Protein backbone atom coordinates (compact mmCIF):
# COMPACT_ATOMS: atom_id res chain seq x y z
CA UNK A 1 0.00 0.00 0.00
CA UNK A 2 2.36 2.69 -1.26
CA UNK A 3 0.82 6.09 -0.61
CA UNK A 4 0.56 8.90 -3.12
CA UNK A 5 1.95 12.11 -1.65
CA UNK A 6 0.03 15.26 -2.47
CA UNK A 7 2.36 18.23 -2.32
CA UNK A 8 0.80 21.61 -2.74
CA UNK A 9 0.15 22.95 0.70
CA UNK A 10 2.74 24.95 2.58
CA UNK A 11 1.17 24.66 5.99
CA UNK A 12 -0.74 22.16 8.03
CA UNK A 13 -3.90 20.56 6.69
CA UNK A 14 -7.17 21.32 8.44
CA UNK A 15 -9.75 19.18 6.63
CA UNK A 16 -9.89 16.85 3.64
CA UNK A 17 -12.99 15.51 1.90
CA UNK A 18 -13.69 13.06 -0.91
CA UNK A 19 -16.54 13.75 -3.31
CA UNK A 20 -19.31 11.16 -3.56
CA UNK A 21 -17.69 9.24 -6.42
CA UNK A 22 -14.33 9.33 -4.68
CA UNK A 23 -12.46 10.43 -7.81
CA UNK A 24 -11.70 13.82 -6.24
CA UNK A 25 -10.17 14.85 -2.94
CA UNK A 26 -10.52 18.38 -1.59
CA UNK A 27 -8.01 19.71 0.91
CA UNK A 28 -8.00 22.82 3.09
CA UNK A 29 -5.08 24.20 5.00
CA UNK A 30 -3.67 26.99 7.11
CA UNK A 31 -1.88 28.38 4.04
CA UNK A 32 -5.28 29.85 2.98
CA UNK A 33 -5.45 27.65 -0.10
CA UNK A 34 -7.95 24.98 -1.03
CA UNK A 35 -6.87 22.31 -3.51
CA UNK A 36 -8.65 19.57 -5.43
CA UNK A 37 -6.81 16.43 -6.52
CA UNK A 38 -7.45 13.36 -8.64
CA UNK A 39 -7.34 10.52 -6.17
CA UNK A 40 -6.16 7.86 -8.64
CA UNK A 41 -2.86 9.57 -9.46
CA UNK A 42 -2.52 12.50 -7.07
CA UNK A 43 -2.50 15.08 -9.84
CA UNK A 44 -3.78 18.50 -8.80
CA UNK A 45 -6.90 19.47 -10.72
CA UNK A 46 -7.22 22.98 -9.40
CA UNK A 47 -7.40 25.47 -6.59
CA UNK A 48 -10.04 27.68 -4.97
CA UNK A 49 -8.49 31.04 -4.27
CA UNK A 50 -10.06 33.89 -2.36
CA UNK A 51 -9.79 33.36 1.38
CA UNK A 52 -7.46 35.59 3.39
CA UNK A 53 -6.92 33.38 6.38
CA UNK A 54 -6.62 29.78 7.49
CA UNK A 55 -9.28 27.68 5.81
CA UNK A 56 -10.63 25.67 8.73
CA UNK A 57 -13.22 23.59 6.99
CA UNK A 58 -14.66 22.44 3.66
CA UNK A 59 -17.48 20.27 2.34
CA UNK A 60 -18.56 19.24 -1.12
CA UNK A 61 -22.13 18.47 -2.20
CA UNK A 62 -23.17 15.04 -3.46
CA UNK A 63 -23.23 16.19 -7.09
CA UNK A 64 -19.69 17.66 -6.98
CA UNK A 65 -21.20 20.93 -8.15
CA UNK A 66 -20.68 23.17 -5.12
CA UNK A 67 -17.92 23.34 -2.56
CA UNK A 68 -18.34 25.30 0.67
CA UNK A 69 -15.49 26.56 2.82
CA UNK A 70 -15.11 28.35 6.14
CA UNK A 71 -12.15 30.45 7.15
CA UNK A 72 -10.42 32.47 9.86
CA UNK A 73 -11.06 35.52 7.63
CA UNK A 74 -14.66 35.36 9.00
CA UNK A 75 -16.02 34.31 5.60
CA UNK A 76 -17.86 31.31 4.30
CA UNK A 77 -17.59 30.84 0.55
CA UNK A 78 -19.51 28.83 -2.00
CA UNK A 79 -17.46 27.65 -5.00
CA UNK A 80 -18.12 26.15 -8.39
CA UNK A 81 -16.24 22.83 -8.12
CA UNK A 82 -15.53 22.57 -11.85
CA UNK A 83 -14.35 26.12 -12.55
CA UNK A 84 -12.89 27.17 -9.19
CA UNK A 85 -14.96 30.34 -9.28
CA UNK A 86 -16.24 31.79 -5.99
CA UNK A 87 -20.00 32.03 -6.33
CA UNK A 88 -20.98 33.67 -3.08
CA UNK A 89 -19.41 34.95 0.14
CA UNK A 90 -21.10 35.21 3.52
CA UNK A 91 -19.45 37.39 6.15
CA UNK A 92 -19.62 36.89 9.91
CA UNK A 93 -18.26 38.66 12.99
CA UNK A 94 -15.93 35.74 13.79
CA UNK A 95 -14.14 32.81 12.16
CA UNK A 96 -16.01 29.94 10.54
CA UNK A 97 -14.87 26.70 12.16
CA UNK A 98 -17.06 24.05 10.55
CA UNK A 99 -19.32 23.69 7.53
CA UNK A 100 -21.44 20.82 6.21
CA UNK A 101 -23.98 20.19 3.46
CA UNK A 102 -27.20 18.32 4.14
CA UNK A 103 -28.10 15.11 2.33
CA UNK A 104 -30.22 16.91 -0.29
CA UNK A 105 -27.52 19.53 -0.97
CA UNK A 106 -29.98 22.37 -0.40
CA UNK A 107 -28.82 23.50 3.05
CA UNK A 108 -25.50 24.29 4.69
CA UNK A 109 -24.84 24.37 8.42
CA UNK A 110 -21.91 26.33 9.83
CA UNK A 111 -20.36 27.10 13.20
CA UNK A 112 -18.82 30.48 13.93
CA UNK A 113 -16.37 30.96 16.74
CA UNK A 114 -16.96 32.60 20.08
CA UNK A 115 -14.78 35.70 20.31
CA UNK A 116 -14.76 39.32 21.50
CA UNK A 117 -18.29 39.55 22.74
CA UNK A 118 -19.71 37.26 20.07
CA UNK A 119 -21.19 33.97 21.10
CA UNK A 120 -20.51 30.80 19.19
CA UNK A 121 -23.34 30.45 16.67
CA UNK A 122 -24.80 27.74 14.50
CA UNK A 123 -26.43 28.95 11.29
CA UNK A 124 -28.32 27.08 8.62
CA UNK A 125 -28.47 28.58 5.12
CA UNK A 126 -30.81 27.56 2.34
CA UNK A 127 -28.80 27.00 -0.82
CA UNK A 128 -30.28 28.06 -4.11
CA UNK A 129 -29.13 25.49 -6.65
CA UNK A 130 -30.79 27.21 -9.61
CA UNK A 131 -28.57 28.63 -12.32
CA UNK A 132 -24.97 29.41 -11.52
CA UNK A 133 -25.35 29.44 -7.77
CA UNK A 134 -24.41 33.11 -7.44
CA UNK A 135 -27.78 34.14 -6.10
CA UNK A 136 -27.90 33.12 -2.42
CA UNK A 137 -29.64 34.61 0.55
CA UNK A 138 -27.41 36.66 2.79
CA UNK A 139 -29.37 35.83 5.94
CA UNK A 140 -29.52 32.38 7.46
CA UNK A 141 -32.79 30.46 7.43
CA UNK A 142 -32.13 29.53 11.06
CA UNK A 143 -29.64 30.57 13.68
CA UNK A 144 -29.05 29.70 17.31
CA UNK A 145 -26.40 30.00 20.00
CA UNK A 146 -25.70 26.77 21.82
CA UNK A 147 -25.67 27.58 25.53
CA UNK A 148 -22.82 26.34 27.67
CA UNK A 149 -19.82 24.81 25.98
CA UNK A 150 -19.16 26.08 22.47
CA UNK A 151 -19.70 23.87 19.46
CA UNK A 152 -16.63 22.67 17.55
CA UNK A 153 -18.12 20.32 14.95
CA UNK A 154 -21.54 19.84 13.36
CA UNK A 155 -23.54 17.89 10.80
CA UNK A 156 -27.15 17.41 9.71
CA UNK A 157 -28.76 14.44 11.42
CA UNK A 158 -30.92 12.06 9.41
CA UNK A 159 -33.90 13.05 11.56
CA UNK A 160 -35.91 15.96 10.24
CA UNK A 161 -34.65 19.43 11.29
CA UNK A 162 -32.01 18.19 13.73
CA UNK A 163 -28.40 19.32 13.84
CA UNK A 164 -25.75 17.16 15.43
CA UNK A 165 -23.00 18.98 17.32
CA UNK A 166 -19.80 18.19 19.19
CA UNK A 167 -18.52 20.59 21.85
CA UNK A 168 -15.41 21.85 23.57
CA UNK A 169 -16.47 20.25 26.84
CA UNK A 170 -16.73 16.81 25.23
CA UNK A 171 -20.50 17.01 24.97
CA UNK A 172 -22.42 15.89 21.90
CA UNK A 173 -25.92 17.18 21.27
CA UNK A 174 -28.88 17.37 18.94
CA UNK A 175 -30.41 20.78 18.28
CA UNK A 176 -33.70 21.61 16.66
CA UNK A 177 -32.55 24.00 13.94
CA UNK A 178 -35.89 25.84 13.85
CA UNK A 179 -36.20 26.57 17.57
CA UNK A 180 -32.56 26.35 18.64
CA UNK A 181 -33.59 24.01 21.44
CA UNK A 182 -31.16 21.37 22.58
CA UNK A 183 -33.43 18.37 22.25
CA UNK A 184 -30.94 15.77 23.42
CA UNK A 185 -27.40 15.65 24.73
CA UNK A 186 -24.75 13.35 26.04
CA UNK A 187 -22.63 15.48 28.39
CA UNK A 188 -20.11 12.72 28.95
CA UNK A 189 -19.58 11.59 25.38
CA UNK A 190 -15.97 12.72 25.80
CA UNK A 191 -13.89 14.22 28.61
CA UNK A 192 -12.28 16.90 26.41
CA UNK A 193 -12.80 18.82 23.13
CA UNK A 194 -14.52 16.96 20.32
CA UNK A 195 -12.22 17.42 17.32
CA UNK A 196 -14.03 15.60 14.53
CA UNK A 197 -17.41 14.12 13.76
CA UNK A 198 -18.07 11.92 10.74
CA UNK A 199 -21.30 10.17 9.86
CA UNK A 200 -21.73 6.58 8.73
CA UNK A 201 -22.82 6.21 5.08
CA UNK A 202 -26.51 6.20 6.04
CA UNK A 203 -26.12 8.70 8.89
CA UNK A 204 -27.61 6.47 11.57
CA UNK A 205 -24.40 6.42 13.57
CA UNK A 206 -21.30 8.56 13.73
CA UNK A 207 -17.77 8.65 15.04
CA UNK A 208 -16.18 11.40 17.09
CA UNK A 209 -12.55 11.96 17.98
CA UNK A 210 -11.40 13.93 20.99
CA UNK A 211 -8.44 15.47 22.74
CA UNK A 212 -9.28 13.01 25.53
CA UNK A 213 -7.35 10.41 23.44
CA UNK A 214 -10.38 8.37 22.53
CA UNK A 215 -12.64 8.04 19.54
CA UNK A 216 -16.21 6.89 20.00
CA UNK A 217 -19.05 5.56 17.95
CA UNK A 218 -22.52 6.92 18.75
CA UNK A 219 -26.11 6.17 17.87
CA UNK A 220 -27.41 9.28 16.03
CA UNK A 221 -30.91 8.93 17.42
CA UNK A 222 -30.07 8.43 21.10
CA UNK A 223 -26.50 9.82 21.23
CA UNK A 224 -25.59 6.75 23.26
CA UNK A 225 -21.96 5.62 23.09
CA UNK A 226 -21.83 2.35 21.16
CA UNK A 227 -18.09 1.74 21.02
CA UNK A 228 -14.91 3.30 22.41
CA UNK A 229 -11.45 3.25 20.85
CA UNK A 230 -8.87 4.35 23.43
CA UNK A 231 -5.38 5.48 22.36
CA UNK A 232 -2.43 7.15 24.10
CA UNK A 233 -2.47 10.35 22.08
CA UNK A 234 -4.87 13.28 21.59
CA UNK A 235 -6.97 12.56 18.51
CA UNK A 236 -7.74 15.08 15.80
CA UNK A 237 -9.77 12.99 13.41
CA UNK A 238 -11.73 9.77 13.06
CA UNK A 239 -13.40 8.17 10.06
CA UNK A 240 -15.60 5.15 9.35
CA UNK A 241 -14.48 2.81 6.55
CA UNK A 242 -17.41 1.71 4.38
CA UNK A 243 -17.72 -2.00 3.51
CA UNK A 244 -15.11 -3.15 6.01
CA UNK A 245 -15.56 -3.23 9.80
CA UNK A 246 -12.90 -0.63 10.56
CA UNK A 247 -12.57 2.87 11.89
CA UNK A 248 -9.50 5.03 11.29
CA UNK A 249 -8.06 7.34 13.93
CA UNK A 250 -5.41 10.02 13.66
CA UNK A 251 -3.74 12.49 15.97
CA UNK A 252 -0.50 12.90 17.85
CA UNK A 253 1.23 15.24 20.24
CA UNK A 254 2.00 18.72 19.01
CA UNK A 255 5.61 19.11 17.87
CA UNK A 256 6.33 21.51 20.72
CA UNK A 257 5.48 18.98 23.39
CA UNK A 258 7.67 16.30 21.82
CA UNK A 259 11.28 16.41 22.93
CA UNK A 260 12.98 14.77 19.98
CA UNK A 261 12.69 15.35 16.25
CA UNK A 262 14.59 13.15 13.82
CA UNK A 263 14.07 9.89 15.70
CA UNK A 264 10.34 10.38 15.56
CA UNK A 265 10.14 11.50 11.94
CA UNK A 266 7.55 9.76 9.89
CA UNK A 267 6.19 8.07 12.98
CA UNK A 268 2.79 9.64 13.18
CA UNK A 269 0.35 6.88 12.56
CA UNK A 270 -3.16 6.32 11.33
CA UNK A 271 -4.64 3.66 13.59
CA UNK A 272 -7.08 1.06 12.32
CA UNK A 273 -9.51 -0.33 14.86
CA UNK A 274 -12.08 -3.05 14.49
CA UNK A 275 -15.34 -1.13 14.65
CA UNK A 276 -17.35 -3.77 16.49
CA UNK A 277 -14.73 -5.58 18.60
CA UNK A 278 -12.98 -2.39 19.77
CA UNK A 279 -9.57 -3.91 19.06
CA UNK A 280 -6.71 -2.23 17.27
CA UNK A 281 -5.88 -4.10 14.06
CA UNK A 282 -3.08 -2.06 12.51
CA UNK A 283 -1.21 1.20 12.05
CA UNK A 284 0.05 3.07 9.02
CA UNK A 285 3.04 5.36 9.54
CA UNK A 286 4.07 8.26 7.39
CA UNK A 287 3.44 11.78 8.56
CA UNK A 288 6.14 13.96 10.08
CA UNK A 289 3.71 15.64 12.42
CA UNK A 290 0.31 15.02 14.00
CA UNK A 291 -2.45 13.83 11.72
CA UNK A 292 -5.11 16.52 11.58
CA UNK A 293 -7.68 15.04 9.26
CA UNK A 294 -8.63 11.65 7.84
CA UNK A 295 -11.15 10.78 5.14
CA UNK A 296 -12.18 7.46 3.62
CA UNK A 297 -13.23 6.98 -0.01
CA UNK A 298 -17.04 6.57 -0.10
CA UNK A 299 -16.54 3.24 -1.86
CA UNK A 300 -14.04 2.20 0.78
CA UNK A 301 -11.23 1.72 -1.75
CA UNK A 302 -8.77 4.25 -0.34
CA UNK A 303 -8.19 6.57 2.55
CA UNK A 304 -6.33 9.84 2.90
CA UNK A 305 -4.72 11.65 5.77
CA UNK A 306 -3.73 15.29 6.07
CA UNK A 307 -0.98 16.25 8.48
CA UNK A 308 0.47 19.06 10.46
CA UNK A 309 3.45 18.52 8.12
CA UNK A 310 1.55 20.01 5.17
CA UNK A 311 1.24 16.72 3.29
CA UNK A 312 -1.75 14.72 2.21
CA UNK A 313 -1.14 11.00 1.80
CA UNK A 314 -3.56 8.96 -0.31
CA UNK A 315 -3.48 5.23 0.41
CA UNK A 316 -5.18 2.88 -2.02
CA UNK A 317 -6.05 -0.34 -0.23
CA UNK A 318 -4.52 -3.44 -1.77
CA UNK A 319 -6.22 -6.77 -2.29
CA UNK A 320 -5.26 -8.17 1.07
CA UNK A 321 -7.23 -5.42 2.80
CA UNK A 322 -10.39 -6.80 1.22
CA UNK A 323 -9.52 -10.47 1.66
CA UNK A 324 -8.21 -10.59 5.18
CA UNK A 325 -10.75 -11.61 7.78
CA UNK A 326 -9.41 -10.75 11.16
CA UNK A 327 -11.41 -12.66 13.73
CA UNK A 328 -13.09 -15.06 11.35
CA UNK A 329 -15.93 -15.31 8.95
CA UNK A 330 -18.67 -13.33 10.63
CA UNK A 331 -20.76 -11.08 8.41
CA UNK A 332 -20.87 -7.56 9.85
CA UNK A 333 -23.45 -5.13 8.55
CA UNK A 334 -22.18 -1.74 7.45
Amino acid at each position, binding site marked *: MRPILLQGHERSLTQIKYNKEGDLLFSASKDIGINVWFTHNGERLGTYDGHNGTVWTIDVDSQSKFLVSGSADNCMKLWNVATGKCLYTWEFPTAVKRVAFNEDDDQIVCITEQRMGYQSAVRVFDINREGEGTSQSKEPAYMFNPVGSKATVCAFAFM*NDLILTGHESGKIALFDMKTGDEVLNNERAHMDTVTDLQLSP*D*GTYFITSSKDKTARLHDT*KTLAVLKTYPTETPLNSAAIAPKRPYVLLGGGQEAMSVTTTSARQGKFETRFWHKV*FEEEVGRVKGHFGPINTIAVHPGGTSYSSGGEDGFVRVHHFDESYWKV*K*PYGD*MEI*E*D
Partner: protein
Amino acid sequence: EDAAEESNVSAELIAHRKRLVDEWNAWRRRCKDDLAEERKKKGTEVDGEPGPQEETKEEIE
Protein backbone atom coordinates in the same frame (compact mmCIF):
# COMPACT_ATOMS: atom_id res chain seq x y z
CA GLU B 1 -1.06 -16.96 9.19
CA ASP B 2 -4.57 -15.85 9.97
CA ALA B 3 -5.75 -19.40 10.32
CA ALA B 4 -2.94 -20.11 12.76
CA GLU B 5 -3.85 -17.10 14.82
CA GLU B 6 -7.45 -18.07 14.79
CA SER B 7 -6.84 -21.51 16.21
CA ASN B 8 -5.11 -19.90 19.20
CA VAL B 9 -8.10 -17.81 20.00
CA SER B 10 -10.09 -19.33 22.78
CA ALA B 11 -13.60 -20.60 22.26
CA GLU B 12 -14.74 -18.11 24.84
CA LEU B 13 -13.38 -15.19 22.85
CA ILE B 14 -14.95 -16.48 19.66
CA ALA B 15 -18.30 -16.72 21.42
CA HIS B 16 -17.84 -13.20 22.77
CA ARG B 17 -17.12 -11.84 19.31
CA LYS B 18 -20.05 -13.69 17.86
CA ARG B 19 -22.29 -12.07 20.44
CA LEU B 20 -20.91 -8.62 19.59
CA VAL B 21 -21.56 -9.17 15.90
CA ASP B 22 -25.08 -10.44 16.53
CA GLU B 23 -25.87 -7.43 18.70
CA TRP B 24 -24.39 -5.08 16.13
CA ASN B 25 -26.30 -6.60 13.22
CA ALA B 26 -29.58 -6.56 15.12
CA TRP B 27 -29.03 -2.90 15.98
CA ARG B 28 -28.15 -2.09 12.36
CA ARG B 29 -31.43 -3.59 11.21
CA ARG B 30 -33.35 -1.43 13.69
CA CYS B 31 -31.46 1.63 12.41
CA LYS B 32 -32.41 0.89 8.84
CA ASP B 33 -36.07 0.66 9.85
CA ASP B 34 -35.80 3.98 11.70
CA LEU B 35 -34.21 5.56 8.68
CA ALA B 36 -36.92 4.30 6.32
CA GLU B 37 -39.53 5.63 8.74
CA GLU B 38 -37.86 9.04 8.93
CA ARG B 39 -37.64 9.30 5.14
CA LYS B 40 -41.29 8.45 4.78
CA LYS B 41 -42.09 11.18 7.29
CA LYS B 42 -39.96 13.62 5.37
CA GLY B 43 -41.78 12.78 2.16
CA THR B 44 -38.48 11.90 0.59
CA GLU B 45 -38.00 8.99 -1.75
CA VAL B 46 -35.32 6.54 -0.78
CA ASP B 47 -32.99 7.76 -3.53
CA GLY B 48 -33.12 11.35 -2.41
CA GLU B 49 -35.66 13.15 -4.61
CA PRO B 50 -37.97 15.34 -2.54
CA GLY B 51 -41.54 14.15 -2.73
CA PRO B 52 -44.37 16.50 -3.73
CA GLN B 53 -46.01 16.66 -0.31
CA GLU B 54 -42.83 17.62 1.53
CA GLU B 55 -43.97 21.08 2.58
CA THR B 56 -47.41 20.19 3.86
CA LYS B 57 -45.94 17.30 5.80
CA GLU B 58 -43.55 19.64 7.52
CA GLU B 59 -46.37 21.85 8.70
CA ILE B 60 -48.31 18.98 10.16
CA GLU B 61 -45.35 18.08 12.33
